[in-house]
């Protein structure tokens, strides 16, 4: 089994706003194109042009409905590794290939020592592990570790590909270990929550719930005060309106 590093102050992760995600899949495909040429790439596609097409994706978007009828909601739910604080996908690894970085908490796989046994995929309740059947090793979201520190990329773009590409701005990246960071404040303000906290893995990534809807006006427009003329011909109320252009 593999040991976790001592808890670190820095906890890099994502905050995903379910109030604004429209389910466009930009995060999923941009992730795939970045990472297929990145640290844990390639991300192969099997049966790419026939039935049963299935590839390796580090980020997938699921769409479903919650509730019934008009009061229900359509939810677009992007899913990727949550970079848990106490991830069993790491502790379960028999070779030490699956690990959590001490310096920033990113959960990674060392493909040189991964034997593709799949225990981590069993252990992860979030379905975040992706087996590359061609190479026989497990792969997963790297939080774009090869982007976020990359000095060849302009500083404002040193963010995970899924964040930088999200057209609605529903994805945020930062240090959730720092209570003053933008992402931590966002979580505090918007009531960000953990997925399945009862599992005890303490996910670093947070999801923001739908905002409270603006109130609906209780009453319809009041009638403009009717006059005797109005009742006969409503147009007449505009006859004496002094207008100027």
């Amino acid at each position, binding site marked *: 089994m593999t040991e976790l590093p001592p808890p670190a102050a820095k906890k890099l992760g994502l905050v995903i706003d379910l109030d604004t995600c*429209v389910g466009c899949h930009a995060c999923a495909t941009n992730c795939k194109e*970045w990472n297929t040429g990145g640290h844990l790439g390639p991300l192969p596609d099997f049966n790419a042009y026939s039935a049963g097409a299935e590839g390796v994706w580090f980020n997938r978007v699921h*769409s479903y409905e919650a509730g019934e009828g008009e009061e229900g909601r*359509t939810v677009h739910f992007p899913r990727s590794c949550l970079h848990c604080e106490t991830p069993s996908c790491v502790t*379960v690894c028999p070779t030490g290939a699956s690990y959590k970085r001490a310096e920033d908490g990113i959960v990674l796989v060392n493909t040189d020592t991964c034997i593709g046994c799949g225990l981590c995929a069993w252990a992860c309740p979030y379905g975040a592990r992706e087996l590359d059947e061609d190479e026989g090793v497990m792969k997963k979201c790297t939080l774009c570790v090869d982007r976020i520190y990359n*000095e060849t990329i302009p500083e404002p773009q040193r963010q995970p590909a899924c964040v930088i590409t999200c057209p609605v701005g*529903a994805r945020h990246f930062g240090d959730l270990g720092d209570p003053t960071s933008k992402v931590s404040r966002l979580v505090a303000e918007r009531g960000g929550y953990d997925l399945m906290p009862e599992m005890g893995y303490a996910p670093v990534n947070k999801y923001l719930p739908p*905002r409270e809807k603006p109130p609906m006006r209780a*009453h*319809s427009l009041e009638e403009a005060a009717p006059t005797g003329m109005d009742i006969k011909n409503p147009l007449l109320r505009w006859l004496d309106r002094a207008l100027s252009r």
Partner: protein
Amino acid sequence: MPDTNLPRDDRAALPRRMTGNGEVIETSAPIGDTVKTTTCYMCACRCGIKVHLKDGRVRYIEGNPDHPVNRGVLCGKGSAGIMTQYAPSRLRAPLKRVGPRGSGEFAEISWDEAMEIATGWLRNVRATDPRKLAFFTGRDQSQSLTGFWAAQFGTPNFAAHGGFCSVNMAAAGLYTIGGSFWEFGEPDWEHAKYFVMFGVAEDHDSNPIKIGLGKLKARGAKFVSVNPVRTGYSAIADEWVGIRPGTDGLFVMALIHELLRTDRVDLDFLVRYTNAHWLVVKNPGGADDGLFARDADGKPLAWDRARGAMDAGSAGLSPQIVGEYDLPDGRKAVPVFQLMAQRYLSPDYAPDKVAATCGVSADRIRRLAAEIADIAFNHTITLDVPWTDSLGRRHETMVGRPVSFHAMRGISAHSNGFHTCRALHLLQMILGAIDVPGSWRYKSPFPRPIPPGPGPAGKGAKPNTPLAGNILSFPHGPDDLLVHDDGSPIRIDKAFSWHAPLALHGMMHMVIGNAGKADPYEIDTLFMFMANMAWNSAMNPGEVIRILTETREDGEYRIPHVIYSDAYFSETVPYADLILPDTTYLERWDAISLLDRPIGSAHGPGDAIRQPVIQPDRDVRGFQEVLIELGARLGLPAFVKEDGSPKFKDYPDYIMNHQRMPGVGPLAGFRGEDGTKKGVGEPNPNQLQKYIENGCFWRHHLPPEQLYFKHANKAYLEDSKAMGLIGKSDQIVLQIYSEPLQKFRLAAQGHGAKQPPDEATRARIATYCDPLPIWYAPLEQQQHDTEPFPLSAITQRPMDHYHSWGSQNAWLRQIRGANKLYMNRLTAHRLGLAQDDWVWVESRNGRVKGQLALMEGVNPDTVWTWNAVGKRAGAWNLSPDSPEATRGFLLNHVISEWLPAQVADGQRFANSDPVTGQAAWYDLRVRVTKCAADEIPLTDPHPAALERPPGLKPAPDLVREPGK
């Protein structure tokens, strides 16, 4: 069992290994060895992209942070562009048909031979009867070139795909407010407090809308989505109004009714910026009835409270907006406002009256009207920005009504879409919410004069003679129609005829059907670019295929020559005689021109280019380059020098040096010899280099005083004129009442030299060319018994595929490789249908088989599916067992291109909007029944699998590294 189930103590007892085994990660590897900017083409949005290359291959495509359209973001399609670049469906060389049409038997030929064949056919047509070339260019982003080429050729038969896409929005907008929803305008995302979106799934614009919705949500503005289906954008709306398809116009008129009834109307805006106070002649039965009363100079008149009839554009006018007035010449006239108010105050538009038809309760309509009015009138925005109006009056602030609207496909794709869209613009005008802070705004170069230009070219086509003017332009009345003296259409698609007088984008969906019937005449050559007419771009693709393969008595094909240019092996390829293989979007030059569909925003005009970021590894050429060479080979005057030699050496040469008017060319930026002029200026030999250095786009930033009230903003209009964006700097008066429409109606009532040729057409024009917005049930539903077909059926554009239909994209097809028919759970329960049942979807036109999915968020009387996900077996180099071909289905199979025959002589009208010719895809009515137990679970129609053209290799099973 997973180890996670082990008790913690047991886990602790297991042997431990070093974490990560000391892995060292390279975190600062360069992305690639080269990065180039260009413009995306995975949909119509035209985002700026940065393409990173490594070892000559595309490594990564990202949004360009500096680009005005997408500001660094990129959608799901754009981010998958790498797989389109390396798709195994790319055509590899010119092809000549050697077997029967549809057999897929082709021989690879050289470009020389291909150009010789095309030139031969086209030269013959041009020398005999140029109308017999039908040149239709699909998802073309270079219409300023392709349309110009067609005019030079001398055929009136040109258009792109707008006739089955957006023309209702374009026409309604351009004839009403001088701009349009579509992609000519945008909500004020920074200031709007209330946003209502009609009928938009994934549409124009893609990323700007997404970016804007993100801003709205962050600011807590209310977002209302009016849409029969609750997916995509509607999913994040604060309120979803699941309206019945085709009833939006009635719903909007009920909102207008409420605003008028309660006097929540911005009268000041109306008299300053619209024709609300213009006088309309009241002379029932007369040839001038319903036209504007004008003075001797032709200026419209209004009635001043003190001074009587006066130029409606005068400063200081105190106009009457109701009442009946005696004109100086003795005629009677009433203001537009009165006609408008009378109509919409009618009980016919009361919420209680329309609720059942719309499927929206009367209380809800009243409440929404109240919310809109509250924001518009009680929560105004004031920007401390002085500006000067067209009359030269300085205003210290800009006051806005922060209610924004946007609408697209769900309005556009109905046969009542033109009037529905006009009704929406009327609602905006009543609220004073057009190009003011917080409202919908024009994207420069809009607004343009109403209508924006002269009538369409196309009359008097003669052999070997160009047509003067723009083929797709703007009729002002019957005299501008493209009809013969007997009233019959000049164009093959009957655009700009009495069948569709304002068919500004042509009617591509009718070309093949009309040619098949030789109605109005036969054609010789059908020349198409990027238009999948044998599949998802056609209404009734089976009929299109039948016509394309039909032979005449002499053994010749009904349409003797079909030339097709596309980059990919689409379903249409097997039905062409000559294939001119195009490049991918990353291998080409292009100009996204102000002469066509530019990338301007509310913040200023702009345009863009594509540059080749990678060289083709196939024997393919960019279509525009081919077209320019064909122009030279045919000797089209604008494409040859005086000695007959080619005028342009290639497409870049054309982009930089072609001048449509002196100083005006395809690109507006970096003009003049030193590249410092904008809009107008002599050609600059370094222009493209300048664009490349600027990220492949150019934009002009409007100063703050020009950002709003553009239709009446002196500085904006004068600067726009100086840049050549508009012809004159007069105020653009918004047209509540449309005089061009009234002129058509008068013709139908028997006035004037040009009149509709028969009673059926006359009745249509009289009814549908109403100068004020009207609502009518979609034509298909009026004209045939809808009882057997109780459900409306519509499609939606998936965000992951829209305009990127090539499901050949290995990533996108994993996201959506098949489509189901979505039905409200309660409706399904009533019909005895269950999730995943195989069902027949039947219409008056036929039936198609697909699989059912149940959902909550859909109007109970509506079924829908994703558009164009279904593919024909074998096409796109997909294996025939692909879900696109086995489970994916096209609703197109059950949509007729014709309305049911409704007149005694069997004359048929297109299944289109009667004003604009817009294909009425969403008027469809169906019934849904469960397939018999013994029917095979395979979609139907399921035409035979297409054979792979020569040169294409079988697609790989495993893709590890794209392009390797």
